[in-house]
């Protein structure tokens, strides 16, 4: 293993290289673009064998990736925001086909209006599509989870596509220390590709013609069960990754906790801002406030077991959502609230469209929460911004 200072996007490209991906469908969209640029560069320099298809849309990026996967080779794509929404149809089609595919989403806000900055709404809007959905909190995890995604996706007990989320810009463009595994380690960890069926003239199989109602429903239930059953399998492959590749980040659980065991209060969130939250928690702990954090690493499967074990019995749970489900709280809040009983859950929706929520905001928010918040769902604007004149026109002459 070597340690390098690389960006989140470079880390993902490196994972694609290490996983010996056979084909990548690429289409540019900020902030994911430098993943595909890096792959194209690696290809031009002969560092990777990956076939690169430079398609004309995200819809086609997923379709080309899907085609290659059906033909029996490891396939990858990456996108964000409008691009993910544009390929939404194919996202579902791939999951329905049960063909192993891996995609990275460099999360970004969704228009209108245009906004290129970080937000998780693009990612969470695919929550019901049947994909396994992991979310990284730093470039190292983006690399590790992308490699594990292939392992999980190609496990016969799973056979579902896997999506890895990564905060746009905040992780995708941050250069930081990343431990890059050796090719031998990954070759040892990642066995040759397996998939439930291959489209090949040698044994004509057809995928996707009409299924009658009961048959269709049975297929849907199968996705449901495979997703539920994947929980243990993800832990298993996580432990194996820790053993064979790197013990640095503990992957034996679907979610990651911080100072939670003896905590009275818990914060639940997903993604890069977990780092700032940990700093805030340390400050509050020094002040005698017993608070901890649960970081959601897998939105799907949603480990009810882990969520309950970690959160039930706390005096209160505060969810930080970087995405929206308009008219309700954020998606994480809805998930948490539907999972735990007898514990008060409050939601803060913030950080949308690139709004910066740092350590000091978190200290403020967590303290307020411990003091008691009335509203179930609060939309929070950082203090500094609050002082600014947020110009949002309302009246048009």
């Amino acid at each position, binding site marked *: 293993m070597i340690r390098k200072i690389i960006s989140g996007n470079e880390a993902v490209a490196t994972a694609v290289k290490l996983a010996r991906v056979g*084909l990548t*469908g690429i289409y540019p969209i900020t902030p994911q673009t430098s993943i595909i640029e890096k792959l194209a560069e690696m290809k031009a320099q002969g560092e990777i064998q990956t*076939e690169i298809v430079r398609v004309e849309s995200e*819809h086609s990026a997923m*379709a080309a990736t899907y*085609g290659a996967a*059906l033909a029996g080779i490891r396939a990858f794509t990456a996108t964000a925001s409008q691009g993910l929404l544009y390929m939404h149809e194919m996202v579902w089609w791939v999951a329905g086909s049960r063909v192993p595919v891996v995609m990275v989403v460099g999360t970004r806000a969704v228009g209108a209006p245009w906004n290129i900055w970080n937000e998780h709404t693009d990612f969470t809007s695919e929550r019901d599509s049947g994909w396994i959905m992991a979310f990284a909190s730093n470039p190292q995890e983006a690399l590790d989870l992308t490699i594990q995604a292939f392992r999980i996706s190609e496990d016969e007990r799973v056979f579902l596509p896997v999506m890895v989320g990564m905060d746009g810009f905040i992780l995708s463009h941050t250069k930081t220390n990343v431990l890059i595994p050796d090719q031998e380690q990954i070759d040892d960890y990642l066995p040759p590709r397996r998939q439930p069926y291959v*489209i090949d003239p040698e044994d*004509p199989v057809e*995928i996707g013609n009409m299924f009658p109602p009961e048959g269709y429903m049975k297929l849907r239930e199968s996705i449901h069960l495979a997703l539920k059953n994947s929980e243990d399998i993800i832990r298993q492959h996580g432990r194996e990754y820790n053993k064979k590749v790197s013990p640095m980040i503990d992957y034996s659980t679907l979610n990651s906790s911080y100072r939670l065991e003896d905590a009275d209060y818990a914060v639940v969130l997903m993604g890069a801002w977990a780092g700032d939250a940990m700093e805030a928690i340390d400050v509050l702990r020094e002040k005698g406030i017993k608070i901890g954090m649960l970081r959601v690493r897998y939105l799907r499967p949603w480990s009810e077991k882990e969520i309950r074990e970690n959160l039930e019995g706390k005096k209160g749970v505060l969810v930080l959502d970087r995405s929206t489900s308009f008219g309700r709280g954020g998606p994480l809040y809805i998930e948490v609230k539907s999972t735990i009983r007898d514990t008060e859950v409050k939601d803060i929706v913030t950080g949308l469209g690139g709004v910066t929520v740092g350590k000091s905001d978190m200290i403020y928010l967590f303290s307020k929460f411990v003091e008691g918040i009335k509203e179930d769902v609060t939309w929070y604007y950082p203090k500094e911004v609050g002082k600014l004149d947020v110009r949002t026109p309302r009246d048009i002459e």
Partner: protein
Amino acid sequence: MTLGLREILNKHNSLISGTAACPGCPENMAMRMLGMGLGKDTVVVVVAGCSSIIQGNAPYNSYNLPVVNIAFAAGPAAASGLARAYKQKGKDVNVVVWAGDGGTADIGFASLSGAAERNEDIIYVCVDNEAYMNSGGQRSGSTPLGAITSTTPEGKKENKKNLPFLMVSHNVPYVATASVGYPHDYIQKLKRAKEIDGFRYIHVLTPDPYGWLFDPSRTAEIAKLAVQTCYWPLFEYYNGKITVSQECLHCLDKRTRRPIKDFLSVQGRFKRVKEDDIAKLEKYIDDMWEKIKELM
């Protein structure tokens, strides 16, 4: 290139009896001929359309080839992925996109254009029944002027989008038009396409008895009539030049063309067509043949 009957009889049977197609279905004819032309080392990507349904229900499928069913706009891209994967695996496979006129002229055009521009090693077959027949016959970009469809009850006001020319403009290695009325011509074109590398486009006219409103027993006859009246040309574009099939050499001279009315009058969909519409259609046909002559 000749094609004896004996050879055809021995060719791969790409369609198995008991399909879910309507009786007299021209797409079924086209699919059978596809197998005769390309043989069994063929993978078909079927985009949404009649062909999605024709295959019938699980646990079986009427297409005797590996088939990838896929969303409307995704065919050429999925085929790109498949073709490149087979190449990587060292397999010689004909990857075919099988799409209707809606999937080609309308919703799938960006994907088609992209794959053509990249010169992907695939064969794109457009089976053109000139409307969204699978959803009950709504107009598409490929519906001809004057035709009644369920969304143009008064007759379509615009001309048919000329896809073969659009594909010629993409500078792809091979573009051909065919009609299920002339199986030998169509099969020969498939065989030629098979020998060429890169993006190949074949546009087959498939008259639909239920959308065009004629007796299903006449499917092949109408498909021939379209060619005889010069409404539908049979040509090949290859090495930068168009070659017109012998079945429609007479169309090159306006004076020897059979009147378009002979084609229109046998179909219910043109029953409201007026004289000035016929003039417009004739103009469309004139312009088309002028363009063909330019490229010969």
